[in-house]
């Protein structure tokens, strides 16, 4: 029993690999399962529907998801600090209205509109930061409140009407301006065949990834999300960083608003409303895509693409548009099963 050759208690060098085959399979499922589902669906659609294979369809799909994806990046940042931004859809909608107001009512050029929209987004983010960081309102509730306030403000700004070029204004005059051609090119223009909005989505994804995964600022945001008190005692200005996350989320949402405004070509007062749930869904799907179990930029971007592929594919397959919400909801729940149910069993 006490012979020296006994290997009952393995030494460090003799330790077998920490995971058995079963565990490895499970962790592979968690890590790549979602990507596998995407690739399978993609292949299926591509093989069965010739029109799905068309590169124009694919670019259109990316163009379609770019707004929700960019909003989702903002949500990802706030989720990294352990929060949530429910106001992104409203901020994007505010962006649409501000863009229209600047160009149509005040007859300004596109650049001014862009600056005004981004400023409005930053301001909305600051309002969220004030409520959450200074007044200590729980993030979900605070941003739900700002969502309503922003939507209401938007309506007051335009007297409850959508702004269209050439419309008759409340004082009887005709609106002097229009959406400039340059502004309209944000969504409708292409560079080397790729829509500008898709390029913006791609660029923002890379920038957000570098920021969140490679810089110390991103590292600090994650630390705050995982253990705020330990972060404070490590010398981190927790409040300032949380505020930063909400301001960046507001700015990203306003960029989504710019694309949306360019796409609609008028100041539609209902714009942005449907983007909220998609953005939150995309960010939540993103936590599971790479099996990280935490918000991450590539996950969010891939999640958006995945949802785009599914909805486009099913639309081509002839599924009516009104089934889209159910499909997206099912995808979200499947993603949540991956990130909570399966990964929990792994760590138990």
């Amino acid at each position, binding site marked *: 029993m006490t012979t020296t050759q006994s290997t009952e208690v393995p030494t460090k060098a003799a330790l*077998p690999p*920490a995971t058995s085959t079963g565990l490895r399979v499970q962790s592979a499922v968690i890590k790549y399962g979602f990507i596998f589902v995407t690739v399978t669906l993609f292949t299926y659609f591509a093989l069965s529907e010739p029109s799905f294979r068309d590169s124009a369809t694919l670019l259109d799909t990316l163009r379609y998801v770019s707004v929700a994806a960019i909003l989702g990046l903002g949500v990802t940042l706030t989720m990294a600090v352990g929060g949530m931004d429910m106001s992104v859809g409203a901020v994007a909608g505010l962006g649409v209205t501000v863009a229209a107001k600047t160009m149509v009512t005040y007859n300004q050029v596109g650049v001014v509109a862009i600056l005004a929209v981004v400023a409005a987004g930053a301001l909305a983010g600051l309002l969220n930061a004030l409520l959450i960081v200074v007044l200590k309102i729980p993030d979900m509730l605070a941003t739900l409140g700002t969502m309503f306030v922003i939507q209401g403000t938007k309506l007051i700004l335009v007297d409850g009407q959508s702004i269209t070029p050439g419309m008759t204004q409340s004082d009887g005059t005709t609106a002097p301006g229009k959406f400039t051609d340059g502004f309209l090119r944000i969504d409708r223009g292409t560079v080397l065949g790729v829509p500008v909005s898709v390029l913006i989505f791609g660029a923002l994804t890379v920038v957000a990834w570098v920021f969140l995964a490679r810089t110390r600022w991103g*590292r600090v945001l994650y630390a705050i999300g995982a*253990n705020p008190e*330990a972060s404070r*005692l490590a*010398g981190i200005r927790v409040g300032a960083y949380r505020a930063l996350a909400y301001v960046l989320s507001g700015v990203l949402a306003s960029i989504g608003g710019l694309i949306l405004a360019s796409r609609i070509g008028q100041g539609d007062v209902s714009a942005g409303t449907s983007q909220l749930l998609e953005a939150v869904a995309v960010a939540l799907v993103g936590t599971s895509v790479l099996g990280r179990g935490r918000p991450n930029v590539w996950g969010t971007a891939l999640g958006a693409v995945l949802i785009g592929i599914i909805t486009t594919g099913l639309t081509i397959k002839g599924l009516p548009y009104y089934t889209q919400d159910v499909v997206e909801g099912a995808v979200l729940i499947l993603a949540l099963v991956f990130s909570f149910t399966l990964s929990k069993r792994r760590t138990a």
Partner: protein
Amino acid sequence: MSPTEPAPAVRPSEPIPAVGLRDVSMAFGGKTVLASVSLDIAAGSVVALLGANGAGKSTLIKILSGVHTDHGGEVRVNGSLAALQSPLAARQLGIQTVHQRIGEGIVPGLTVAENLVFEELAQARGNPFLNGRRLLARAREIQSALDLNWSDSVLRRDVTELGVSDRQLLILARALATRPRLLVLDEPTSALSAAEAKRLFALVERMRDDGIAVLYVSHRLGEIDALADRLVVLRDGLLTEDQARPFDWDSALRAMLAQAQEATAARPQRAGDQGEIALSLRGVPLFDGHPPQDLDIRAGEVTGVVGLLGAGKTELARGLFGAEPFPAGALELDGRPYAPRRPADAIRSGVHLVPEDRHADALVPGWSLAQNISLPFLRSLAPLSAAGLVNRSKEDALGRATIERLGVVARDEHSTVEELSGGNQQKVVVGRWLAERPRVLILDEPFRGVDIGARRDIGRRARALAAEGAAVLVLSADVDEVLEVADRVLVLTAGEIRLDAYGDDAERDRVIQSISASV
């Protein structure tokens, strides 16, 4: 309810143990954590379980409490084979476990009374409607049976208003209210001061006299010496020592630690002459409205502060670190005014704190060891980041250096902190603050829930740091822990410094006397 089998033949002279383990084993992913453990715990006896961090104590406890169900071997309760398939099954078989993490045992938002009767509330049968008066009466019954002396107004308070020690007593009272056959106590005094621990010991002794079997897991040898009828030592998943009273401590400690180490370390030798004053406090009250204190903390030595819970120990540490600024008074660091308003100020000035609760206040869950170590210094340690980008190879190197320097037992610097045992987690937290050589290092209860080997390693690092010219402040409720590491010993009671002694003047008895004199 429990699956039964005829009891094995026992000789009449040997009573059936309350709980018996036969060849119990457990492995995680191919790694053997418990090899083959056989242990009988007799009714009406206290069995102490000793073991270094990672020896398998927690696994054994989790098997007994029905958390780990896929173990090898068998568990018998009162002689019949028992299936501990869930925490509920374990409780129904009369095995109650009080876990080390107090936060996991209480339900915030409920009153003290509701927490006391929580297990009865949580049961499916019985009246589903709450009756405040009946509930309070039952809570009163439980607390009076254990002499907790909690008035009705205490019982009606939200449980979060209780201090740590009262929460611990509450959890214990709740476990005892079910009249268990075996009570497993995992480091029950780790958050208690000496006086509070005495209260707990009295309770444990009463339970034993009532015929309850107690498995007492602790790192504190003094407690075991006072309480236990028998001690067993677990090392690398095997029971290596089984002693009845009187205990042979040298043998027990040798069995517990890999190398033979003397039971009590010699008092440290002073490094040299008194160093210059690093940090001075003038007119600083530790609590609002308490008398202001003056204190000089010198460089080149380890200053130990002994204080019970509520003595102001943690307030002193957090005040110096700017985590909770002092209500009044003036501080100087190396002769210059020093008024940290937040931890960031203190860190910039070279004042670092290893906080009391490593899980709540220091570690980032899910992160690798290297990431946990670098967190405070991503900006200030120049090569760790350039233009905001984190240099991960430098970060890994820092992690490896810390593993090396403190002897952290880990796969590598990419291991997550959860993979480490408690003692090694603590080494990571201490090692983090050594990454940038601090001017003043404050260690608040650095040895809590840490085995003797890790305690020696951490103590050695603290002394080495002082020898290099830093001021080191070690705060603890355990007199021996402080005496083992400190050049100078302060005693803190009720926010006042009672004793301030160097070397031979700081004898154990004197320190204890000065604490008890002020009670």
